[in-house]
């Protein structure tokens, strides 16, 4: 077909009505010319169809016909249509929601200046990696690199108002606002020349603190007992790298203003900044990584002890809310799989419905066949109907997913500025889902309906039933496993006590208090805390229990969690000393206490007391002086905990956390906060109950369990309804057979057997494959199971029991009907 022809066709398609009228006029003239002789036009309709074919849109007409006819059919049975659309809306809606979420966070660039050229700098070396870097490193890279057109740094912080309310702050280097782009709502943004004490407020903080006062610029606020001046307010849709609901932006240069004595600009070991760069034009991410290697080597001369061997800076896309690395988290995959499974279950269920409807439409089909419709034409008609259902379902899915996304945003305090409106990718995804669904639930029934075959019908039905059973088994088992895991996490004695305890964060290092000075400060601080009413015990640790600091150490027997603690730690955390003593403080460089797990692994048949324990490279040997009970204070779900405790040294004092156990934390919290923050002190102490950390660790798990349980419930419900319908169907079909059997003296049990006859095989097959698939999928969920086995019999057996009892329940009504069949009327019944 050449271009001219294509144009003519388009022209015809658009002007169809006019052209048809013209043709009619032409035929009229022709008829008139013929005078009294009979014209041989044949049917006017046929002529029009032939002409349309010549114009090349016979297919269009036929599609239109199919759609028209389909709409009539769907309107005629509103019950079926509504059910089908609801099932599809649910199945597609779940997937569209999840994809919309993923799209907004990981696929859609942030609305900042040229987001694709923004990268985040990480640190990596063989065996080590970190997200943060020090200010001296940042400054060195910024001055010496040739691969970025600009670099900036961001550091998070929590400040306190005089009222004690917490303020979420971000310290930023001068380039930040210019690189994000956009204009402030009021005043100006921060730049390279700000008077000390300048801050920019976020929209929400401005509303909260200043009531949306348009004269807020120039007003003062007190942050960490220092006075700051508002120079600008960001608009509500302001978005930056690492989107987050923030309160204020503060120049990095003012760090010491809010943290007196801050050494952030000089301390090469203080990894407090997250670094960003904008790739210079024409430089790829890979080229930039290579270009930075020599810079890192040069920087080593400035800070030999703070650059790892073979350190380099991997670059991550920075212009997205979530950076999608090549190693996508397995959670993403498993969530996607489960959601698609739910849609598949919905399709299988709908397929059964379509099949049953097809059987009812047998008469209509045979009439259409007799009238000359080819099988292909009938299949196309039926598929058009399926497609219309799927598209209606997809359309209905959008409001559903909008509600779900809003709910998520509200529940999780997601940044207001992230745009969750569906874009073309989401729409395309929904269309793909609808098309796939239509084929999944429509093709087999359409083939069957267009040319009925009893054998094929029962085979299709079996496959569909087995698929539904398998999918609901998978989801129910997984949700059972995760519920067991959560239960275990909640009830398990973790080996230490945290309910009435708190961590006090001091950040002495940031304030420039280090070494012996830090020890001196902490001695006084501990004494004050210990005298506070309600406090039972106080200790020091480098790792906050249930906080989010880690320090693991590779070792011959696996990864060890290394704790640096003082002599009171075991008592404060109530970790039992099983053997030896807990007094690690004596002779800090040689004595350690090991956890029971380590003892079992290293000396399975021997007492570890007095044994030498080498560190990673074998250059240093510690003497084991005690064995403590296993206490996974950092990773609660970790079943193979391997803890090692060594005394905290003066050099580490600056980063120490004060651990407090009280009689009742909710009562003691207020007093603790007051005692920890005396008016004359320049150190800001944050008291965080461990319960908060515990809740945080549990939240993710609880959310996951809730979502999988909800999915499982949906799939189960759909499957049970489908099965019940099928039992009812087979009973109805065999009423006559049952009647005859009863007349010949069969017991009711015989009738029940007939009712179930068709189901046993697909249910069994579905269940077995569901069990297998669940066991496989559970492997990837291990980390949320808190030590529950992936083939935990209780979860599996209870899932099967639940499933079977629901099937039984659903089967009661039709089976009662079967056992009450009256032989005489059954035989009379057609």
């Amino acid at each position, binding site marked *: 077909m*050449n271009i*001219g*022809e294509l144009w*003519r*066709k388009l022209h*015809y398609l658009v002007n169809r009505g006019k052209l048809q009228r*013209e*043709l009619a*006029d*032409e*035929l009229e*003239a*022709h008829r*008139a*010319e*013929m005078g009294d002789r009979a*014209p*041989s*036009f*044949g049917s006017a309709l*046929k*002529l029009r169809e*032939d*002409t349309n*074919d*010549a*114009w*090349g849109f016979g297919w269009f007409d036929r599609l239109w016909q199919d759609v028209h006819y389909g709409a009539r059919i769907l309107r005629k049975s509103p019950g079926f249509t509504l059910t089908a659309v609801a099932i599809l809306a649910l199945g597609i809606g779940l997937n569209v929601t999840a994809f919309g979420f993923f799209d907004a966070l990981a696929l859609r660039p942030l609305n900042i200046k040229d987001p694709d050229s923004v990268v985040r700098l990480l640190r990596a070396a063989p065996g080590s990696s970190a997200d943060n870097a020090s200010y001296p490193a940042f400054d060195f890279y910024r001055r010496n690199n040739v691969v970025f057109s600009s670099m900036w740094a961001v550091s998070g912080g929590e400040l306190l108002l005089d009222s004690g309310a917490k303020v979420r702050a971000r310290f930023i280097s001068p380039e930040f606002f210019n690189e994000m782009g956009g204009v402030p709502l009021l005043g100006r943004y921060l730049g390279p020349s700000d008077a000390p004490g300048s801050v920019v407020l976020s929209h929400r903080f401005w509303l909260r603190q200043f009531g949306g006062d348009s004269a807020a610029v120039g007003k003062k606020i007190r942050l960490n007992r220092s006075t700051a001046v508002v120079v600008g307010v960001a608009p509500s849709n302001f978005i930056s790298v690492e989107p987050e609901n923030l309160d204020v932006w503060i120049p990095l240069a003012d760090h010491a203003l809010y943290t007196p004595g801050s050494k952030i600009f000089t301390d090469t070991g203080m990894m407090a900044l997250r670094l960003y760069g904008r790739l210079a034009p024409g430089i790829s991410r890979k080229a930039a990584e290579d270009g930075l290697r020599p810079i890192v080597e040069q920087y080593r001369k400035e800070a030999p002890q703070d650059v790892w061997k073979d350190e380099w800076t991997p670059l991550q896309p920075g212009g997205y809310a979530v950076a999608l690395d090549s190693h996508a988290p397995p959670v993403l995959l498993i969530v996607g799989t489960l959601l698609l499974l739910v849609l598949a279950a919905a399709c299988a269920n709908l397929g059964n419905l379509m099949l049953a409807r097809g059987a009812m439409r047998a008469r209509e089909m045979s009439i259409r066949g007799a009238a000359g419709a080819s099988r292909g034409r009938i299949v196309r008609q039926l598929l058009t109907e399926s497609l219309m259902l799927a598209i209606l379902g997809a359309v209905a899915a959008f409001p559903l997913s909008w509600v779900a996304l809003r709910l998520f945003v509200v529940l999780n305090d997601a940044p207001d500025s992230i745009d969750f409106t569906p874009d073309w990718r989401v729409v395309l995804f929904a269309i793909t889902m609808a098309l796939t669904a239509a084929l999944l639930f429509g093709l087999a029934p359409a083939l069957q309906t267009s040319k009925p075959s009893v054998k094929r019908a029962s085979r299709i039905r079996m496959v569909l039933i087995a698929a539904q059973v398998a999918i609901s088994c998978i989801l129910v088992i997984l949700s059972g496993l995760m519920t067991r895991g959560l239960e275990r996490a909640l009830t398990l004695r973790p080996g230490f006590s945290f309910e009435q305890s708190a961590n006090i964060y001091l950040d002495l290092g940031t304030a420039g208090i280090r070494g012996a000075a830090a020890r001196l400060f902490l001695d006084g601080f501990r004494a004050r805390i210990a005298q506070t009413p309600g406090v039972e015990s106080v200790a020091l640790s480098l790792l906050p229990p249930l906080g989010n600091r880690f320090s693991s150490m590779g070792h011959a027997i696996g990864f060890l969690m290394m704790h640096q603690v003082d002599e009171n730690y075991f008592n404060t955390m109530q970790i039992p000393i099983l053997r030896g003593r807990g007094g690690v403080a004596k002779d800090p460089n040689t004595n350690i206490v090991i956890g029971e797990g380590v003892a079992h692994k290293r000396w399975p048949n021997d007492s570890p007391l007095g044994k030498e324990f080498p560190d990673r490279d074998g250059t240093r040997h510690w003497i084991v002086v005690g064995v403590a009970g296993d206490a996974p204070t950092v990773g609660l779900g970790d079943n193979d905990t391997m803890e090692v405790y060594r005394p905290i040294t003066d050099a580490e004092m600056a980063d120490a956390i004060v651990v407090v156990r009280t009689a009742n934390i909710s009562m003691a919290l207020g007093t603790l906060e007051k005692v920890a923050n005396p008016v004359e002190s320049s150190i800001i102490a944050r008291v965080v109950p461990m319960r908060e950390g515990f809740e945080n660790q549990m939240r993710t798990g609880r959310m996951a369990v809730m979502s999988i349980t909800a999915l499982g419930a949906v799939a189960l419900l759909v499957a049970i309804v489908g099965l019940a319908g099928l039992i009812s169907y087979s009973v109805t079909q065999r009423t006559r057979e049952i009647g005859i059997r009863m007349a010949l003296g069969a017991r009711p049990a015989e009738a029940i057997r007939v009712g179930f006859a068709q189901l046993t095989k697909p249910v069994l097959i579905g269940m077995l494959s569901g069990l297998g698939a669940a066991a496989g999928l559970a492997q990837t969920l291990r980390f949320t199971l808190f030590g529950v086995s992936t083939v935990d019999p209780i979860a599996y057996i209870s899932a099967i029991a639940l499933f079977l009892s629901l099937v039984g329940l659903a089967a009661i009504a039709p089976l009662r009907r079967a056992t009450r069949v009256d032989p005489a009327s059954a035989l009379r019944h057609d």
Partner: protein
Amino acid sequence: MPESLGVPPGTLAMLILQVLRGGPLHGYVIAQRIHALSKEVLQVEEGSLYPALQKMLMKGWVTAEWGISETNRKVRFYKLTPLGKKQLAAEATEYDRATAAIQSVMRTA
């Protein structure tokens, strides 16, 4: 008079193109002309004439324009395009070859 025949399948477009060589004609005259030139053997069915004309319009072999017929009726005149001339030449050659081939089979076999 012997019964008229329908146009052999596949040749209608060629016949229409051929009679249009003399100049623009409207539908009724095209049918008349084919009928007369075939010594009243070939009868063009109107039911296939108009779809064929539409298809030829689409292919760009002819163009159409409204005009007034000798009997003073508003009719559509079809006119051969250069593309149509080329098509006619191609189809005529094909047709001659096929006819010659068929005839040689009919005579010798």
